[in-house]
């Protein structure tokens, strides 16, 4: 590696090397961010089509036409897949993690910049491949984001299960490879590129969250990749890993002896850690923002680190709770149930510590802080329904109902997205050198918070009333018809919430070019990214290697001249 000065001098000049195939982790982070932003609007649009169809099943929509039941299932599949992989996994880790992990540990770049670039462009290819599934014969697959076999393993099982499903699996396999490259880079960077004095226990909690997420990704995506290869073989080479003796449209398929449960085990061994891959970075950002805007050190730093580590550890032990209804042994279900509830302990530790951080703080209610508080709110609201679903007895009633949809959207979907919003409003000044509009930020926050609760809280009632998920039409079933007013309410809420996101996008792009110039440290924060120029130079610290003397959250330190001590301040600044 070159010295800082030479790195500084070797700033790429050409457009292609600077902005397209850049090796700079900051540019790659922004590329990931905008890829996820594009993906989230695609996913959101698909969800809007679903909500419209649920309430007005016969509606003929411009450019879309009438939504048939199989089209509804395709929308559902693509919404889930795009949101989970290309939004919830891409933006928090690939986007913000890429941009800020090296800066927060005092490194000039990621450990393997070329691998980093490859990781982004591989993800991009994966996104293009999955979008292509919309345009091939038969359209997009209809087996849901979980891709349960044998539906996903038989090309003749339905429209979209032909080439569309092959593209879906290929896209996920490509995404796995990209994520593995990214995870390898994150782990090596964190372990090996920290600045002098940046001990592990001085790392910001954001860095811890990206680091643990990378470990989860490293161990989980390989399993999904294997599962995907087996699925492709079943579909195209005539093997019988997942497919038993089945009859489709009166014809006996050539498979026999395979186990659909084998897919479920492999998928959920990846799938449950994936939940934490999505939410852990949000936890890190919430910790960072809550401490900064409460002007208080994070409550129980070490407990927060150990809680994240134990959440990651338990995340690999609980996949079976997605399969209580699959006929598994009650003893297994009992074990998975106990282990699942164990995750409640570190989760509660984190929640109490966030509240403890805010307690008696001099809170600055700026937009990033609002979103961090919103994150905690959604994490609690979504998390509390987890112990219900963790009970096999209750799960018999609640499985495959809207209760589950409400639960995972609040805890994994919207909470993680609130983490991303907090991160965007918090780090925007550092990334783009300008401030976002505060007033529109607040408007966006309150509309989004109210809107998401209005969409997803009623789902719990729907589920308890027996409202099944994945049905494209409820108008033909008498007891489900009675629930239609709730569906209508949720659809109206979805309209308003999605409309509110355009406020965010306008604020983002307007502020990028017209927002007031940001100072180097507008939030008076302590971590290393706020010690460097805004936006940071190519080598992050302008030829200087930072030396860290303090912990990451030293606010309101008695004896210090300011109410915060930056990580690279002289060691003696706060001695008293």
């Amino acid at each position, binding site marked *: 590696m070159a010295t800082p000065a030479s790195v500084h001098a070797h700033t790429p000049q050409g457009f292609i090397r600077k902005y397209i195939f850049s090796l700079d982790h900051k540019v790659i982070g922004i590329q990931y961010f905008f890829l996820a932003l594009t993906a989230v609007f695609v996913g959101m649009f698909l969800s809007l089509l679903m909500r419209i169809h649920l309430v007005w099943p016969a509606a003929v929509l411009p450019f879309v036409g009438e939504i048939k039941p199989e089209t509804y299932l395709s929308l559902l599949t693509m919404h889930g897949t795009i949101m989970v992989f290309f939004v919830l996994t891409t933006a928090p880790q690939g986007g913000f993690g890429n941009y800020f992990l090296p800066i927060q540990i005092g490194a000039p770049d990621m*450990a393997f910049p070329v691998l980093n670039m490859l990781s982004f462009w591989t993800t991009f290819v994966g996104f293009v491949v999955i979008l292509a599934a919309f345009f091939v014969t038969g359209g997009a697959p209809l087996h849901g984001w979980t891709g349960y076999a044998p539906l996903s393993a038989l090309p003749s099982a339905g429209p979209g299960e032909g080439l569309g499903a092959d593209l879906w699996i290929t896209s996920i396999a490509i995404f796995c490879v990209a994520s593995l490259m990214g995870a390898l880079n994150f782990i090596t960077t964190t*372990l090996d590129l920290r600045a002098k004095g940046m001990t592990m226990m001085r790392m910001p909690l954001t860095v811890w969250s990206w680091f643990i997420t990378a470990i989860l990704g490293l161990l989980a995506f390989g399993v999904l990749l294997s599962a995907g290869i087996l699925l492709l073989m079943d579909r195209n080479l005539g093997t019988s890993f997942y497919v038993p003796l089945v009859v489709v449209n009166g014809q006996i398929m050539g498979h*026999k002896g395979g*186990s659909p449960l084998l897919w479920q085990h492999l998928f959920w*061994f990846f799938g449950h850690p994936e939940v934490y891959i999505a939410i852990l970075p949000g936890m890190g950002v919430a910790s960072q923002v809550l401490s900064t805007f409460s002007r208080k050190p994070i409550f129980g730093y070490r407990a927060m680190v150990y809680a994240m580590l134990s959440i990651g550890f338990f995340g690999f032990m609980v996949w079976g709770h997605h399969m209580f209804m699959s006929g598994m042994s009650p003893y297994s279900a009992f074990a998975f149930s106990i282990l699942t509830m164990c995750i409640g302990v570190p989760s509660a530790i984190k929640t109490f510590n966030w509240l403890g951080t805010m307690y008696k703080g001099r809170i600055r209610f700026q937009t990033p802080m609002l979103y961090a508080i919103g994150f905690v709110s959604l994490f609690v609201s979504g998390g509390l329904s987890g112990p219900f679903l963790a009970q096999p007895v209750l799960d018999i009633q609640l499985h495959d109902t809207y209760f589950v949809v409400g639960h995972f959207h609040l805890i994994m979907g919207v909470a993680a997205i609130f983490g991303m919003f907090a991160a965007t409003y918090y780090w925007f000044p550092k990334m783009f050198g300008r401030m976002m509009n505060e007033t529109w930020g607040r408007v966006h926050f309150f509309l989004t918070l109210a809107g998401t609760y209005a969409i997803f809280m009623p789902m719990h009632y729907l589920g308890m009333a027996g409202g099944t998920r994945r049905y494209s039409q409820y108008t033909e079933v008498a007891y489900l018809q009675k629930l239609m007013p709730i569906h209508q309410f949720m659809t109206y809420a979805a309209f308003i919430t999605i409309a509110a996101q355009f406020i965010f996008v306008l604020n983002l792009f307007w502020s990028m070019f017209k927002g007031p110039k940001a100072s180097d440290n507008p939030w008076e924060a302590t971590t290393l990214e706020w010690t460097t120029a805004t936006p940071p130079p190519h080598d992050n610290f302008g030829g200087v290697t930072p030396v860290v003397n303090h912990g990451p959250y030293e606010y309101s330190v008695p004896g210090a001249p300011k109410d915060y*001590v930056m990580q690279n301040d002289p060691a003696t600044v706060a001695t008293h």
Partner: protein
Amino acid sequence: MSTYSPTTPIDHVGHGHKPPLPPAAGGGDDGRGGGDVPNYGARLRRARLGLICGIATVCMVFVSLTSAYLVRQGLPTFDGASNSYVRDWGRVDLPWLLLAINTAILLVSSVSMELARRKAALQAALAPVRSIPGVSLGNERSFPWLGITVLLGISFLVGQWLAWGELHARGFFVDTNPNSSFVFLLTITHAVHLCGGMIALLWAASASLLHKPVEARRIVVDITAWYWHFMAVLWIYVFALLGFAK
């Protein structure tokens, strides 16, 4: 105020009961400090760390395939003729001799790769001495261990190709029975990973041809060597799995 993270000079920071850490306890200088000379030691450490992560991933791939192998092996399927559940795992007549020869070739290649790694390490260690004007270390005997490894690697892949052909000749294809599906799946997945090692080997060989600094070349050779050894161990695992868990 509830809690504080410690605001103490770095020299006073300790981990639990351990003695205080020196200032470079974090990532160290990670190859960035000290003039214009690249820190090859730090680079090597980083590359090895990345390799460990990569190996962990490959292990997870094979652990999940093994899991699928064992689960699928025990699954019954419904037999309409006897109106009962029967085991459909089936048998595969593996070309044992050919696979044993391939194993021997891969193990020998691992030895030659190790010799190449040691030679590269020695050359890197002697590079500073060699650069002193007037100092000569004499003519070293240069044996093309890397080239030998490449040849042995190609031989192994050709041998695997022949083994797949032999399986076809004996009437076993990927969809013949679940056992044969796994034989092809595991051996081909291993071969694909070995191809990655071959590319790394060619990269290492080209580093020599492109006159890259001997220290930089040593890193490439070192990483490739450890990956190659891992491939050999992985093949023995696959071979044992197919042999003993059939």
